[in-house]
C-alpha cells in the first residue's frame, strides 16, 4: 500500500514537472523561434527541438521561474552554436582594419543610391525586408552574430549575454563592437549584390 502511494506521488510529481516545463516552453516558443531563425536560419526548428529536449533534461537546474526565459535562451544559443559548428566548412576571412574604418552612414551619403530621396539613410534601411535582415546576419561569423542578435534584437544586456556564453563582459562588448561594424559592412555589400539599390534611379 505504501509502495503504491509512493508510486502515485512520484508519477504525480513527474507529471507536474512535465506540465511546468511545457507551460514555460510554450510561452517562449515564438520568441525562441525568432532568435533561432536569426542564428541558424533554416535550421531554426531543429535547433529549437534540440533546445526543448536538453532543457527538459536539465529542468531541475532552474531554481527560479522568473529566470526561465533567459535560461531557455542560453540553452537555445548553445544548440544553435552546435549546429553552426557542425555545418561550418572554413573560417570566414575578415579584414578588420577595413571593417573598422567602414561607416555605413558615410557610404550611403557618398554613393547616394537614391538621388531623389529626401531621407536617403531611412530609404536605404527601408529596402531591407525581414528575409534580407536574416540573410545579412547569417553572413556574420557566429562569434559576432550571437551577441548582436541577443542584445540589439532580443533586448538582453551585455552582461547577461556574457553569463550565457560564459565569457567576460569585455569580450562581449568587443564582439558587439566588431559585430556592429561587420553588420553595417555586410548590409551595404548585400544591398549591392542583391539588387536592393537597383531601384535607386526611380
Amino acid at each position, binding site marked *: 500500500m505504501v509502495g503504491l502511494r509512493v508510486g502515485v506521488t512520484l508519477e504525480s510529481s*513527474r507529471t507536474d514537472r512535465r506540465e511546468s516545463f511545457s507551460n514555460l516552453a510554450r510561452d517562449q516558443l*515564438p520568441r525562441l*523561434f525568432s532568435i533561432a531563425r536569426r542564428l541558424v536560419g533554416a535550421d531554426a526548428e531543429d535547433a529549437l527541438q534540440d533546445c526543448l529536449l536538453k532543457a527538459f533534461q536539465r529542468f531541475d537546474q532552474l531554481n527560479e521561474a522568473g529566470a526561465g526565459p533567459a535560461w531557455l535562451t542560453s540553452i537555445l544559443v548553445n544548440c544553435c552554436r552546435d549546429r553552426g559548428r557542425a555545418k561550418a566548412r572554413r573560417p570566414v576571412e575578415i579584414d578588420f582594419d577595413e571593417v573598422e574604418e567602414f*561607416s555605413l*552612414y*558615410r557610404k550611403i551619403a557618398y554613393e547616394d543610391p537614391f538621388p531623389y530621396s529626401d531621407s536617403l539613410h*531611412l530609404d536605404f*534601411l527601408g529596402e531591407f525586408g525581414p528575409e534580407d535582415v536574416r540573410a545579412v546576419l547569417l553572413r556574420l561569423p557566429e562569434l559576432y552574430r550571437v551577441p548582436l542578435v541577443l542584445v540589439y*534584437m532580443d533586448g538582453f544586456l551585455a552582461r547577461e549575454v556574457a553569463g550565457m556564453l560564459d565569457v567576460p563582459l569585455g569580450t562581449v562588448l568587443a564582439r558587439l563592437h566588431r559585430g556592429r561594424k561587420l553588420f553595417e559592412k555586410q548590409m551595404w555589400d548585400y544591398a549591392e549584390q542583391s539588387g536592393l539599390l537597383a531601384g535607386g534611379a526611380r
Partner: protein
Amino acid sequence: MISCSEALRQLWEYLDGALDATDRAQVEEHLGLCRRCCGELEFAEELRRFLASSAHDDLPDDVMRRLNQTLEELGP
C-alpha cells in the same frame, strides 16, 4: 577634444549607456561641435530601432504543431 574616429568608435556604447562619465562627456563635447558625427549618431539610433523592429518572426502553424508534439511526448 577627441577626434571623429574616437567619437565614432564610442558611439554605440554611448547610445547603450555603457560609457563612464568622463568618456560620455568627451563624446558629448565632440557631438556638440561636429555636425557629421551628429549625423552618424542619428543613423546609429535609426539602425538600433531598425534591428529591434526586425526581431520578430512569425512561428508557422506547422512548426508550432511539431514543437507542441515534442513537448507532449517528453518523457518523465
